């Protein structure tokens, strides 16, 4: 639990600091420092334990079934990194307090820093690889926030985005790599993974896994060719750079190399990839660093270069090299953090970081100068500074490893060359800044900063010297446990000392030092050369171009695809449906025509069929004259009803007929507000295309229908026919199905109708359209609003129609009819009143809003369904009985009838609500009494 809590501490701390924002800078500084210290204290006992050689592992079950528990591990490597993260973290917190100007919110910075700290701890203390990745990505996210700290600045935003993009990409690759690794090993937990190196290296998936993991590591550690995000991340406040970009986050990559060293290393692929990339980066970084005029830029590239050095060391693959790598991780962290802080001080004091303007600060700030010089001596690898020791080791390894491979001589050669450049840029850092004449019009006049701002640097410099002079006494034990954890085995014999006698490494150092001095002396021509190349060789430009291209293409493609055109969507849908349906039908070797005996066609049917088809075609052909098309559609509807009659579906016929009438009225009501004709817009080509699609669709439907009609298949009919009378108490099987067997469908169906009405009512809102004052041909409307004859007979018909609807309703259960048809008849009868006598007249006699009817219908239906619960039966269970009353005679009552009553009410209510409100859309006909009512 300790580890878990220790990792959580910074996260809580972040929240705390953010919360305490308004209590001033000092408070937040102390809180942040306190949190860090607390985390350190919690970890100390475990660190002591791992010094004793025991690896602590803590487990919290999380997603066990996916092999993803929260497992934490504290071993030597962990110790090392915990010290770096928390130790340097403390110094950075102290430093930032003085660095940041009063305008900027310190607590925000601390909050972000603590977030990062926690994530970083998580990375180095994870036992489970996936969990490690989670924290890994968290470092990317928090660094995004940190880099974009000055959110007002464009370079900060773009730098943050670039860092996130690249490290994020690496993280995703890493995820893939880890999953592969886990797939090979059968577990994501380091203990197993580290133990099964041979298995992994032999596995066919080894190479892809290696590549993906390295992608992750290299992006994080800014290895070539992903190095360019680091210099752009320098837009971050200097404390951030000192922390993330020297000591911790960029180390995560090399940490990963170290962590997985026993599993992945030892193959040629590893050696060539890691060694090659590392060496390239080492050299490239060193070279580019020399030419940066920006103080932090120089440091950034030197960081890249040193990371390359470490990578190269792990790439060499020998235990000794690995040990050297670990050692250099320590050293680089120490001196580079110091250098960044020094640079920060200079920036802080001069208001600029341009080395062409900052000159001769020696007089202004001798103290800072001394500190910076020692640190950069370590960077250059000058004896007595810690950097010298690890670099020396590197040279030694390079020399020895070089002898083993073909072209091996390249290794020491490149190493030395890079060493020369390293010395050169370190020299430049010292000479340009502190000597080299007078400052050039600085914004501020520099002088020594406040005491406490230098303390962190001093501490680090002291460490530099201590390690550099008495390595064996100071760093040795830490190095030993760390290296042991990396190698998962015995640590090779080594002696940390300044003097190993005259060996190749020493000569390489000498060459580097001397060569560096010389190179710096004659740097001018190189600078000109570089300035010419620089324009083209910047990774950043390439990255930006990439992004531009990406967004541009995306926009173009999307605009091309996603034209907000309904017709395209419909066409796509129809075509895809055709394709799917066709593949379904065609890809089986069964004839389209089945074996069912066919009916002979008779004259009337033929005529009716022809009329149907011709009317449809005509309606389509004449669709521009809308009213004509409407009339033709009416004919189509009539014939469809006749078809239903012909093929023994009287209920359908009745329904179709009544719906037909209502639909026509509906369309007429709409047509009044729409143009009378459709303009000819579509190009001929397009019309042909649509015609083609339509033809295919029609053909497809016809083919399907034909295939269906020529095959017999007894569906579920039998059961319904048998149980209709005994079970459902009704002779009209269709109606019994509707209100009983499949009553739930009807339940939903009336709901649809109700919602449609309500939705339409809601949709119309206060919609008021001005009706045209004259018809399409410019003729004024007839003056006679309500023809008297029509009015009279409409009233005369109303009682008759109601009577008929009652009749249809009552017989529905046993004979064609039912609540739905009855409802429509009633509705039509009432609508005729509107037609004949107008809205205001009718509203004087009918409620304008039939919501209550609809609601009542729904409730009745619901209650009928629920009633069966009282008898312990499921929803909608029906009951019926025959009664015999004197005088009245014998009659049947079925609960289904109550349900049907609900249907009736909903239909009447909905239909009226729809049509009336549509009628009210016309401004003129909207009289106050009928204006929409507020819910």
């Amino acid at each position, binding site marked *: 639990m300790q580890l878990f809590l220790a990792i959580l501490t910074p996260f809580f701390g972040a929240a705390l600091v953010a919360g305490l924002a308004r209590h001033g800078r000092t408070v937040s500084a102390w809180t942040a420092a306190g949190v860090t210290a607390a985390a350190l204290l919690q970890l100390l006992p475990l660190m002591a334990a791992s010094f004793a050689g025991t690896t602590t592992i803590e487990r919290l079950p999380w997603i066990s079934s996916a092999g993803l528990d929260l497992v934490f591990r504290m071993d030597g490597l962990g110790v090392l990194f915990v010290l770096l993260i928390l130790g340097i973290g403390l110094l950075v917190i102290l430093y930032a307090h003085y660095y940041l100007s009063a305008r900027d919110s310190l607590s925000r910075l601390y909050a972000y820093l603590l977030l990062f700290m926690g994530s970083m701890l998580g990375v180095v203390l994870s036992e489970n690889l996936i969990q490690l990745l989670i924290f890994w990505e968290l470092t990317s996210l928090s660094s995004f926030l940190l880099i974009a700290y000055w959110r007002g600045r464009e370079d900060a935003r773009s730098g943050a985005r670039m860092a996130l993009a690249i490290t994020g990409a690496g993280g995703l690759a890493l995820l893939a790599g880890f999953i592969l690794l886990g797939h090979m090993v059968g577990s994501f937990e380091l203990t197993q993974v580290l133990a099964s190196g041979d298995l992994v290296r032999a596995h066919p998936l080894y190479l892809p896994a290696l590549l993906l993991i390295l992608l992750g590591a290299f992006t994080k550690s800014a290895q070539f060719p992903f190095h360019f995000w680091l210099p752009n991340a320098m837009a971050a406040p200097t404390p951030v750079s000192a922390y993330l970009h020297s000591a911790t986050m960029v180390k995560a990559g090399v940490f990963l190399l170290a962590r997985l060293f026993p599993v992945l290393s030892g193959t040629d692929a590893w050696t060539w990839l890691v060694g090659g990339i590392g060496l390239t980066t080492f050299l490239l970084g060193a070279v580019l660093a020399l030419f940066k005029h920006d103080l932090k830029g120089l440091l950034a590239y030197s960081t890249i270069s040193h990371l390359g050095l470490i990578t190269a060391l792990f790439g060499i693959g020998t235990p000794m090299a690995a040990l050297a790598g670990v050692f250099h991780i320590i050293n680089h962290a120490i001196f580079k953090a110091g250098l960044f802080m020094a640079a920060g001080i200079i920036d802080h004091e001069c208001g600029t970081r341009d080395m062409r303007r900052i000159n001769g600060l020696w007089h202004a700030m001798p103290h800072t100068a001394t500190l910076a010089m020692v640190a950069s001596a370590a960077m250059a690898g000058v004896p007595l500074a810690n950097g010298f020791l690890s670099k020396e080791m590197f040279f030694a390894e390079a020399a020895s490893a070089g002898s083993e491979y073909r072209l091996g001589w390249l290794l020491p050669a490149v190493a030395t060359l890079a060493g020369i450049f390293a010395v050169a840029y370190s020299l430049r850092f010292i000479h340009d800044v502190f000597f080299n004449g007078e400052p050039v019009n600085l914004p501020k006049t520099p002088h020594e900063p406040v005491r406490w701002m230098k303390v962190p640097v001093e501490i680090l410099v002291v460490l530099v010297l201590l390690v550099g002079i008495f390595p064996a006494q100071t760093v040795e034990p830490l190095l030993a446990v760390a290296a042991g954890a990396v190698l998962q085995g015995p640590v090779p014999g080594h002696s940390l000392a300044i003097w190993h006698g005259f060996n190749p490494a020493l000569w390489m150092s000498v060459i580097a030092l001397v060569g560096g001095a010389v190179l710096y002396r004659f740097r001018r021509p190189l600078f000109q050369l570089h300035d010419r190349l620089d324009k083209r060789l910047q990774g950043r430009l390439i990255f930006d171009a990439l992004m531009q291209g990406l967004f541009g293409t995306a926009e173009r493609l999307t605009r091309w695809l996603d034209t907000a055109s309904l017709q395209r969507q419909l066409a796509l849908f129809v075509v895809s449906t055709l394709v799917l349906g066709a593949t379904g039908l065609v890809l089986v070797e069964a004839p389209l025509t089945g074996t069912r005996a066919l009916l002979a066609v008779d004259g009337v049917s033929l005529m009716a069929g022809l009329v149907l088809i011709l009317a449809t075609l005509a309606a389509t052909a004449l669709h521009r004259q809308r009213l004509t098309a409407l009339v033709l559609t009416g004919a189509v509807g*009539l014939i469809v009803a006749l078809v239903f009659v012909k093929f023994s579906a009287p209920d359908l016929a009745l329904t179709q007929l009544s719906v037909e009438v209502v639909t026509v009225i509906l369309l007429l009501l709409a047509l009044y507000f729409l143009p009378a004709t459709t303009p000819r817009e579509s190009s001929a080509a397009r019309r042909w295309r649509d015609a083609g699609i339509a033809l295919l669709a029609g053909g497809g439907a016809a083919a399907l229908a034909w295939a269906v009609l020529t095959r017999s298949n007894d569906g579920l009919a039998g059961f319904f026919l048998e149980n209709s009378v005994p079970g459902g108490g009704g002779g009209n099987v269709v109606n019994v199905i509707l209100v009983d067997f499949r009553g739930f469908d009807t339940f939903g169906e009336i709901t649809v109708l109700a919602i449609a009405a309500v939705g339409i009512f809601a949709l119309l809102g206060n919609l008021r359209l001005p009706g045209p004052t004259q018809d399409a041909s410019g003729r004024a409307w007839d003056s006679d609003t309500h023809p008297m004859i029509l009015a009279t007979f409409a009233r005369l018909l109303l009682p008759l129609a109601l009577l008929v609807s009652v009749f249809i309703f009552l017989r529905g259960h046993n004979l064609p009819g039912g609540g739905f048809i009855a409802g429509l008849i009633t509705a039509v009868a009432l609508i005729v009143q509107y037609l004949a006598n107008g809205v205001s007249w009718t509203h004087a006699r009918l409620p304008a809003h039939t919501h209550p009817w609809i609601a009542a219908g729904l409730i009745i239906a619901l209650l009928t369904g629920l009633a069966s619960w009282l008898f312990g039966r499921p929803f909608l269970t029906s009951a019926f009985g025959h009664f015999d009353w004197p005088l009245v005679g014998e009659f049947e009552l079925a609960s289904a009838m109550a349900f049907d009553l609900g249907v009736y009410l909903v239909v009447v209510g909905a239909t009226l609500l729809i049509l009336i409100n549509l009628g009210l859309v016309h401004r003129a006909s909207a009289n106050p009494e009928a204006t929409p009512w507020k819910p």
Partner: protein
Amino acid sequence: MLSSALILAFVFVAVAFGLSFFRLLRGPSLPDRILALDTLYINAIALLILLGIQLGSPLYFEAALLIALMGFVGTVALSKFLLRGDIIE
């Protein structure tokens, strides 16, 4: 005999159907088309009754009844549309 009479009757009505539909297609004026539709409805009634007699089933009667009762609504609405545009005002 009745059956043969029915067949002949069916032919008559079928032709009637065709003629009305011809007018529906031909127009020329909208009232013509509406009239044709109205006639189609009346023919449909005839057809339904004949069908009822032929199949000896009274189940088709209500359809005829419904047409007689509501068929005219469409016609009226269409005419009103021509007269006033706004049919519910």
